[in-house]
């Protein structure tokens, strides 16, 4: 199991900067159009929790309208860091529902962790002089309590 190490917003901003293109759209942020100070401020404003998972970053933002649900992101192309994050959120925070908004090329990590397609947001993300669709992926876990 991949170990998770919690990061402060400033550490998370630096990690996202190092992750490059893989971090674009991470929890709604973009290290290409936002500097480190703005990244840290946005992560704080969204109450984001960011973790280092091996060489990747994973994170979540709680849904304020439904405390059992969280929006999750990962900079890894593989599913293992996502599985570790879901295990942590399920076990220690009692989250039972997870949503990921990812581009087509980033979907494999989440599909490999058990997420399912729920829809497409057309033209939701701008990068590289073009608008791109985002996939909505969802996963629900049974409540253990």
């Amino acid at each position, binding site marked *: 199991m991949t170990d998770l190490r919690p990061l402060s917003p400033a550490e998370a901003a630096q990690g996202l900067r190092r992750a490059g293109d893989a971090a674009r759209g991470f929890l709604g942020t973009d290290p290409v*159009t936002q500097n480190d100070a703005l990244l840290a401020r946005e992560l704080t404003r969204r109450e984001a929790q960011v973790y280092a998972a091996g060489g990747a970053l994973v994170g979540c933002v709680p849904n304020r*309208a*439904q405390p059992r*649900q969280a929006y999750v992101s990962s900079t890894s192309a593989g599913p293992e860091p996502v599985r570790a994050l879901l295990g942590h959120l399920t076990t220690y925070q009692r989250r039972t529902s997870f949503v990921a908004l990812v581009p087509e090329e980033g979907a494999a990590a989440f599909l490999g962790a058990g997420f399912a397609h729920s829809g497409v947001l*057309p*033209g939701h993300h*701008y990068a590289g002089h073009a*608008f791109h669709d985002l996939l*909505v992926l969802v996963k629900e876990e049974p409540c253990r309590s």
Partner: protein
Amino acid sequence: MKLRGYRGTDRGLLSGPWLAGELLGLPIGDWPALAEPTAVPPPTGDDEELCVTDDAFVRYTAIDWVHRRARVEIGVHSPLSDVDTLLARAVEHGFTGLNLRRLHGWVTPVTRPDTEALTAAGFRREAVVPAATWFDGAPAAREIWGTIRHD
């Protein structure tokens, strides 16, 4: 019907018996008598825009000027209001007044929303998120509806 900018004297329009964050928030008939009405805060930052009519508000929130998109919330006080015109004005202001390219919002099927009005305004259902909100003592699914300006 004309959208105008929010002023402090319009504060009374910002609360009512709707589900929070709803794209088309119409009054819920069986709203519990002791439940607090849903309220939206007055605009504070540059990622929000708040417009009002005589009996409704239109809130553009989470405006992202890079991705040129915003999430829209509407709260209507009278169920007899002309929601078709209100939605058309909201879309028009978002696309031409704010120069956004995409507008989206939450629709909660369990509240039996007026999806024909949304469709007439150009919105389409794009995704379903299970257990996205809490309603009537249980998690409820929400849909994401959106519209795009093609230019």
